[in-house]
């Protein structure tokens, strides 16, 4: 492959993020994917109306997040006494029991990071929808990259299922309204990620700034 090395930075070439092999940026159609020829890492994806869809999913996710925090997730009943919990109660319970480290970990991974991801997406994409530049797109995009691994809502759902099964053995447990909202929030967040095409994001930002 002949490569023009005379650039300060370029958008016509890309190095695989996992093995560093240089690829020229192909013109792929919407809905198609491009993978690294050497290590198989996903390099390119194109989605139809990527930024619009991602914003729509992020806004949907935010609504469900709010609902997920208002009502109980699970209700537990035994001998006429009952107790229910909200999303944030797990973190509080650890904190109150003296396991403050775990309280912080659970608070960040089940409440703060999932909410922050949605808010960053919205504050990034909503102004762009109206042709304006977000307040600090570079910072917001970097923040999004660093937040991603710590938002663990989908894993929290499995935690709820395991807790539910364990409790069923000796008491009456019922599912609260917020559990449904929480599941829908996770689905919306995943869709917001999957539809977001970062190349489209950068080129749209360039257009707006020009």
């Amino acid at each position, binding site marked *: 492959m002949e*490569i023009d*090395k005379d650039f*300060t*930075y*370029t*958008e016509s*070439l*890309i*190095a*695989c*993020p*996992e*093995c*560093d092999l*240089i690829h020229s940026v192909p013109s792929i159609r919407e809905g198609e994917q491009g993978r690294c020829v*050497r*290590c*198989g*890492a996903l390099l390119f994806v194109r989605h139809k109306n990527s930024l619009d869809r991602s914003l729509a999913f992020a806004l949907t996710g935010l609504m469900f997040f709010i609902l997920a925090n208002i009502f109980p*997730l*699970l209700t*537990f009943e*035994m*001998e006429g*006494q009952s*107790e*229910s*919990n909200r999303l944030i*109660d*797990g*973190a509080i*319970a650890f904190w109150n*029991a003296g*396991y403050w*480290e*775990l309280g912080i*970990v*659970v608070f960040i*991974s*089940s409440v703060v990071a999932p909410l922050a991801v949605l808010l960053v997406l919205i504050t990034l994409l909503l102004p762009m929808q109206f042709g304006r530049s977000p307040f600090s797109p*570079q*910072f917001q*995009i*970097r923040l999004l990259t660093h937040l991603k*691994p710590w938002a*663990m809502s989908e*894993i*929290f759902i*499995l*935690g*709820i299922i*395991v*807790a539910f*099964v*364990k*409790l069923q053995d*000796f*008491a009456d447990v019922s599912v609260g309204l917020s559990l449904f909202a929480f599941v829908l929030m996770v689905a919306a967040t995943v869709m917001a990620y999957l539809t977001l095409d*970062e190349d489209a994001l*950068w080129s749209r930002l360039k257009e707006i700034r020009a």
Partner: protein
Amino acid sequence: MTAPVTAKSIGAISCHVCGLLVSSGLTTTHNARCPRCDARLHSRKVNSLSRTWALLIAAGILYVPANVYPVLTLISFGRSTTNTIMGGVIELAHSGQMVIAIIVFVASVFVPIFKIAALLFLVVSVQLRLKVQRRKRAVLYRFTEFIGRWSMIDIFMISILIGLVKLQALATVTAGPGAIAFAAVVIITMFAAMTFDPRLIWDDEGDDYDG
């Protein structure tokens, strides 16, 4: 055949955050930043191997208390049962919840040990300049990075139980010290996967062509 053309071989750096390819003309200065997203530019993750080693050793040490100490205690009608991570899985299996028992076993027992072993293998294979099966090792890394977070299931389960089951003498669940060590193992191995640079698997491939 010619040697594979990498960003490094043409004197460029691929931004770790946004993927922009930047020439080293811009990156000769210390602490150079990406012109597009303003992240710090590094050709390879900084001190990747020694950082990953350090985190893996820490995770290996914490793996012991994570599995020996109880993670939760249930007190019901004056009877108390204490579970370790493995004990929780066995109890689920005994109560006939095989599917859930398998999910918890994979997430809490298999994944942490698999992750430590896989990253150890990757680090050692890079240090020994192993030339074979690069693509399989790349897939192994991708898989390891993907599954790591799922071990948090048990921590979330415990947080829900202690927040929900607090009916004093009737039924109360409390957390055990093993939970802190277990969460530490999960988080430290997540960092270990993040600090390992998969490009190192491929970096000496070009040497084969130069003879």
